[in-house]
């Protein structure tokens, strides 16, 4: 594989941006950055993203009814013409409800069939999902799509009165992880005059000294901190003196107690985003509406039952998406595996009672707490179709997995290496007919 160059990673990098990258990498308390990446935006792309940000800021997200989505017909026709998977289904049905739903399993089977013929392959990038619902995924994307996330973040932050201001020489965002293995790097954001972007891991192994984490973050003074509830919990333990303008939380359910603690500690709003690799930021939690307000004007959200039938407003079911801004992976009736009801609250379409992927922690024999993502990474190389891991109050683990007999020896070896040789572990065949898999669960209080 050819190694990309810095000119490809940062096509518009100026001298001031280069100096900032150097400062971020060579800071006396900087962590070990394990990877390299960049914005990959050309000058033209930067203009496109800025125009998109303006469009999204001004757009209205209408009530989620097929007849109000003026873009939908043309979008469906394009998908059925340009995307191999949909083309194979024949003509475009008259009603969206007659289009069969697709799921993570369909994307996981062969994502190439969902990439439009018109998508430019030379700039294709990928995002890997953590597979918290049982199907690890490779998502086709593009630098423009990745950069366009910020348009929806700005829209969400605007609800809390926050306008991003970080600029040249400052750090716009630090993305926090807390995992044994984490993709970490530094970059700049050209749409923000090359404000810095740092993706780092708070796991102690990535640092020369554990206290460097606090010192580095304080030295960076980022305008925004992004992470998940687990990395934010780790951040709180550092006792860092930071004054960000906002925290963006994704990936897992943010419990009210943690939100409150974060808001009190950092003196800023914490925006809980419902965001998927497959679709980008879909909704942001607004405490005033007690629900997640939809963010994307060119996305139609349906709530469907098990048979894929759209449910009326207020009824709880699976969140299903059509449209979106990832032109490399247009979604048509994509079942997310997440559940909520959809209601109009103060005129805004809002997901109520969103049941996302709650973080689960497991205890090892040595008493160490592990994030469920560690298990996901550990088992990823085995390419398991689906599995479920549960920890009983006694600490005993039970793993149900598709193809248990085939993988048992390897699974046992891997899990005992992580949890300790004395760990009680049962491995059984997963009953896939039992419906949605709650992948991780624990009866141990963490």
């Amino acid at each position: 594989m050819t190694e990309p160059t810095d000119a490809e990673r940062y096509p518009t990098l100026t001298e001031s941006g280069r100096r900032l990258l150097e400062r971020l990498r060579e800071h006396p308390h900087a962590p070990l950055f394990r990877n390299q990446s960049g914005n990959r935006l050309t000058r033209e792309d930067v203009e496109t993203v800025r125009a998109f940000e303006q469009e999204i800021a001004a757009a209205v997200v209408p009530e989620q009814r097929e007849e109000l989505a003026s873009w939908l017909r043309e979008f469906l026709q394009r998908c059925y013409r340009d995307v191999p998977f949909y083309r194979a289904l024949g003509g475009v049905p008259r009603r969206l409800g007659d289009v069969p739903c697709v799921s993570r399993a369909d994307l996981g089977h062969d994502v190439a069939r969902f990439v439009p013929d018109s998508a430019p392959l030379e700039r294709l990038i990928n995002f890997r999902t953590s597979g918290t619902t049982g199907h690890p995924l490779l998502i086709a994307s593009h630098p423009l799509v990745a950069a366009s996330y910020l348009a929806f973040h700005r829209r969400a932050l605007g609800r809390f009165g926050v306008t991003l201001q970080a600029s040249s020489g400052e750090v716009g965002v630090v993305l926090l992880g807390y995992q044994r293995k984490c993709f970490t790097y530094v970059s700049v954001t050209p749409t923000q005059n090359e404000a810095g972007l740092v993706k780092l891991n708070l796991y102690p192994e990535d640092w020369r000294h554990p206290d460097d984490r606090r010192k580095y973050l304080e030295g960076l003074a980022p305008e925004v901190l992004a992470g998940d509830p687990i990395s934010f919990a780790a951040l709180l333990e550092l006792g860092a003196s930071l004054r960000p303008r906002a925290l963006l939380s994704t990936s897992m359910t943010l419990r009210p107690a943690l939100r409150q603690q974060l808001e009190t500690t950092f003196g800023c709003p914490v925006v809980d985003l419902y965001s998927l690799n497959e679709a980008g930021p879909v909704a942001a939690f607004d405490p005033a509406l007690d629900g997640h307000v939809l963010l994307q004007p060119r996305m139609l959200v349906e709530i469907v039952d098990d048979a894929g039938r759209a449910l009326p407003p207020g009824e709880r079911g699976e969140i299903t998406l059509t449209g979106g801004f990832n032109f490399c992976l247009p979604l048509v009736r994509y079942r997310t595996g997440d559940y909520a009801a959809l209601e109009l609250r103060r005129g805004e379409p809002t997901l109520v009672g969103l049941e996302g992927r709650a973080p689960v922690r497991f205890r090892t024999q040595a008493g160490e707490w592990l994030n469920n993502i560690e298990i996901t990474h550990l088992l990823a190389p085995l390419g398991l179709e689906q599995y479920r891991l549960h920890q009983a109050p006694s600490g005993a683990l039970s793993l149900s997995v598709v193809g248990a007999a085939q993988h048992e020896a390897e699974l046992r070896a891997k899990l005992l290496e992580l949890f300790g040789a004395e760990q009680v572990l049962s491995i059984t065949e997963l009953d896939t007919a039992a419906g949605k898999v709650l992948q991780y669960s624990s009866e141990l209080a963490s």
Partner: protein
Amino acid sequence: MEREGCELSRLMRRIAETPPEFLEEPRLGPQGTVAVSAVVGDLCRWHGIQPESAALDAFAIGTPKSDRKRLRVSLLLAWVLAEDWFRSVDLRQLPVLGLLLHGASELCEYATVEKLVADAERREELARFCLARLGFRPQGETRAQAEDRLTSLSAAERARVLRASRDAEARARAVREALARKAAEESADKYTRE
């Protein structure tokens, strides 16, 4: 074949009644009598399409050995597309020139003009082929019925389906390879990660 077209019998009747002038030899250099490019140009303008002269050149250049067959089919297709029903639908955004040029090349691989006119099955094939390439299905048929019938009738269509399937597989392979490149693996900046 998203849209419903006209009755198949209407087009088949027209093909059976092709005037002898449309079966004449195409003009290629000193040989032949019919200037196919002029016929195609007239047809396009009749449908409100303004073809560029470079596009029409493809119907005037070549040698009798390599281009006679395809131009004879182009001429026959021009006769079919002059049916009044085609005038009643707007063809301006449809691939009329593609049908006359590439469609003719595909058809001439499997049938002569004489056969396309004289043989009832070939007439049906030609009528269905014209409609399908412009996105129509015969009146009264579902898309699936129309596709099945065309594929079973037409060697050209079968070849097209095979080619499309090969192209789709090649594209899927190219997508998988592009996604596996180091640059794709490195991904790009997002303000949040899921």
